[in-house]
């Protein structure tokens, strides 16, 4: 089954991004396909290349990057939401790409299920 994932909140402040990551990982482990993970609202902050969480805590951005590397998961940051909040080409972490909100609607059309995580 093909899943689209929507992440509405930034890392650390809310668990939303962590739960979305665990869901995505479990879906892949169960043999499902991830059509796309779309980062909207404050969710765009997951894609910063500049975060340095304490060494005894998880690194949310790295978690997403590893999924992209290992499973070619498409990680898309909303361009408009990102511009508003300062997530742009200059500080975009490798593994993420910036595109339009249409990519979320497309995920809604193409994926069998859309699962959203937020506040």
């Amino acid at each position, binding site marked *: 089954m093909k899943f689209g994932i*929507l992440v*509405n909140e930034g890392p650390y402040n809310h668990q939303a991004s962590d739960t979305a990551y665990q869901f995505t990982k479990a879906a892949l482990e169960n043999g499902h396909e991830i059509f796309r993970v779309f980062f*909207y*609202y404050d969710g765009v902050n997951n894609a910063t290349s500049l975060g340095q969480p304490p060494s005894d805590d998880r690194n949310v951005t790295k978690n997403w990057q590893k999924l992209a590397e290992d499973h070619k998961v498409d990680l898309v940051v909303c361009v*408009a*939401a990102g511009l508003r909040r300062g997530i742009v080409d200059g500080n975009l972490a490798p593994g993420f790409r910036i595109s*339009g*909100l*249409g990519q*979320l*609607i*497309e995920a*809604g*059309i*193409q994926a069998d299920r*859309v699962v*959203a995580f*937020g506040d």
Partner: protein
Amino acid sequence: MDEMESGVVKKFMFINRKPPHGTVYALEVLEMVLISAAFDQDVHLAFIDDGVYQIKKGQAPAEIGCKNFSPTYRALDGYDIEKLYVEAEGLAERGLTEDDLLVPVEVLSRAELGKLMGEMDVILTA
């Protein structure tokens, strides 16, 4: 965008549960709704709980320094987005009536809206 010609038409519902201005959700949901129009999907908007405040008449956020995006709801029919639903219980709890709303809507009971939600293919709530 070849998905725009894919021919697949799904029932999308955007459920608005939050008041405007205190958070950005109302505004950014509206941006999602406008984009969805370009994909020729069967788009539904529901205003429930505090979401009914999003379409209250008379909003003027200049003094709090924010943009007044509420007129955009009136422009939705120009994008062929005409399925707007408001929950009757949500209005009543807040002392509001249909006359307080800035855009024509269909008022449904919570039970009716719940049933309609059950018919959707994709639901995005904020």
